[in-house]
């Protein structure tokens, strides 16, 4: 059933449709509407779940870990400072191999107190062991949450997944979202049945002291799980398309077959970039766009395959790894090097702190890379 709703509501309905049984969350702008909607859905009996009000994001994730370890499908949502406060327990969830799903509204990190779109929050949690997806529109937010459970709960994956949506550009933007019927969901998403769960009548030792004799193997198992996850994300995407008609993979190529210049983008900028590609094509410029939908596990094979024919590659980052460059730029470069694909690469920082990235901004970015070699990273639109 199609409805007009904002991205926060799309995330909430995603959790409801995925038959989530436990939610613990703490409100923070611009995620607040998720907490409001979910508590309303639970209070009205529309959603058969327990909603815990907690006193911080750290507690929210800790509570989710407890519930998930007891074999219950759980969900939480946060943003910016909230995600950062969760940091310690994010690691705990991942190494504990608990397939929790979290919706993170990408918001800049303070100070310079900011509530606006910026991926610094989630990028800074890159190495927590969470899978990370960046959604382009509200439909993708909703669909990604449903797929997330199927991927994360796969017995050979068992890793938590973070679905990221841009502050305001999705969280507070109303769009048409097609909600899936419960009976169809039940066909797509099996119930969560972990091999181990907290159960007094069947006790196990969870997350015990692990000596150097064993810790390394557990880390290696995380590596294997991330590799498996790449396969699962693709498989589940195909299955989802068969049932519901919408296609999602690790990456999404747009008009790159014959493109000289390829933009590499993520989140809402990817949509605006596709629009920009069409505009530039009308001007006779052979431009394409590669959207990186999944950032962890990083789809290096797909990225290299998509970029192999490009003459120039421009990576647009709405995040910055202080002292170096944008994180997506680093990853793309590293993936290409790993596979021996060498070509001119440009790292462009844009949209930082919620600054609007319009088709005009993206045209400027392409023009920059066409001109004399810009210094990497290049800060687009900074008032110098």
């Amino acid at each position, binding site marked *: 059933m199609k409805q007009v709703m904002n991205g926060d509501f799309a995330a909430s309905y995603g959790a409801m449709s995925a038959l989530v049984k436990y939610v613990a969350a703490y409100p923070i702008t611009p995620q607040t509407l998720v907490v409001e909607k979910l508590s309303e859905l639970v209070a009205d009996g529309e959603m058969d779940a327990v909603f815990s009000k907690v006193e911080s994001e750290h507690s929210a994730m800790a509570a989710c870990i407890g519930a998930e370890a007891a074999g219950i499908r759980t969900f939480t949502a946060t943003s910016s400072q909230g995600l950062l406060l969760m940091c310690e327990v994010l690691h705990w969830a991942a190494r504990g191999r608990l397939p929790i799903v979290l919706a993170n509204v990408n918001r800049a990190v303070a100070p310079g107190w900011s509530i606006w779109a910026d991926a610094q929050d989630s990028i800074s949690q890159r190495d927590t062991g969470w899978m990370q997806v960046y959604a382009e529109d509200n439909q993708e937010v909703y669909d990604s949450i449903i797929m997330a459970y199927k991927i994360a709960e796969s017995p050979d994956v*068992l890793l938590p997944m973070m679905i990221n949506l841009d502050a305001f550009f999705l969280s507070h933007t109303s769009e048409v979202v097609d909600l899936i019927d419960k009976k169809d969901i039940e066909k797509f998403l099996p119930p969560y049945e972990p091999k181990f769960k907290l159960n007094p009548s069947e006790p*196990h*030792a*969870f997350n015990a002291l*692990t000596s150097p004799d064993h810790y390394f193997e557990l880390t290696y198992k995380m590596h294997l799980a991330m590799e498996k996850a790449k396969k699962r994300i693709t498989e589940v995407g195909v299955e989802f398309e068969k049932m519901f008609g919408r296609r999602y993979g690790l990456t999404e190529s747009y008009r790159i077959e014959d493109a000289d210049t390829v933009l590499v983008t993520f989140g809402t900028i990817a949509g605006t970039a596709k629009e920009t590609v069409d505009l530039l094509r009308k001007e006779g410029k052979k431009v394409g766009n590669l959207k990186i939908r999944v950032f962890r596990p990083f789809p290096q094979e797909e990225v290299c395959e998509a970029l192999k024919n490009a003459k120039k590659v421009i990576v647009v980052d709405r995040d910055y790894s202080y002292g170096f460059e944008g994180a997506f730029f680093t990853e793309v470069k590293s993936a290409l090097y790993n596979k021996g694909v060498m070509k001119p690469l440009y790292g462009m920082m844009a949209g930082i702190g919620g600054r609007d990235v319009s088709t005009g901004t993206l045209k400027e970015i392409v023009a920059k890379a066409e001109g004399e070699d810009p210094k990497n990273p290049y800060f687009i639109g900074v008032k110098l």
Partner: protein
Amino acid sequence: MTDDKKVELNKVSDYPEMPVSLGSMLWNKTSSWRNFKPVIDGTKCIGCGICWKFCPEPAIFPTNPPTVDYDFCKGCGICISECPTKAISKVDETR
């Protein structure tokens, strides 16, 4: 499945996906740590349960009188010093 048998973790495929039951204390017997054993005199015991509460292992079962699990008692002596009726005595290990 309970953790009642020793898990051999020799290669990556031996490990479960979750870090659960990797090395259950059930097979990690700590009796070799002990150079004496606590022995409970049922005639002095008043069944207060203090030894059971204080045993850090825990290696005391709350029977009446309590029984010590000598597979896991590591001989710390806490039960001996906490027992209000001095019902538990320190007996040298003769292995």
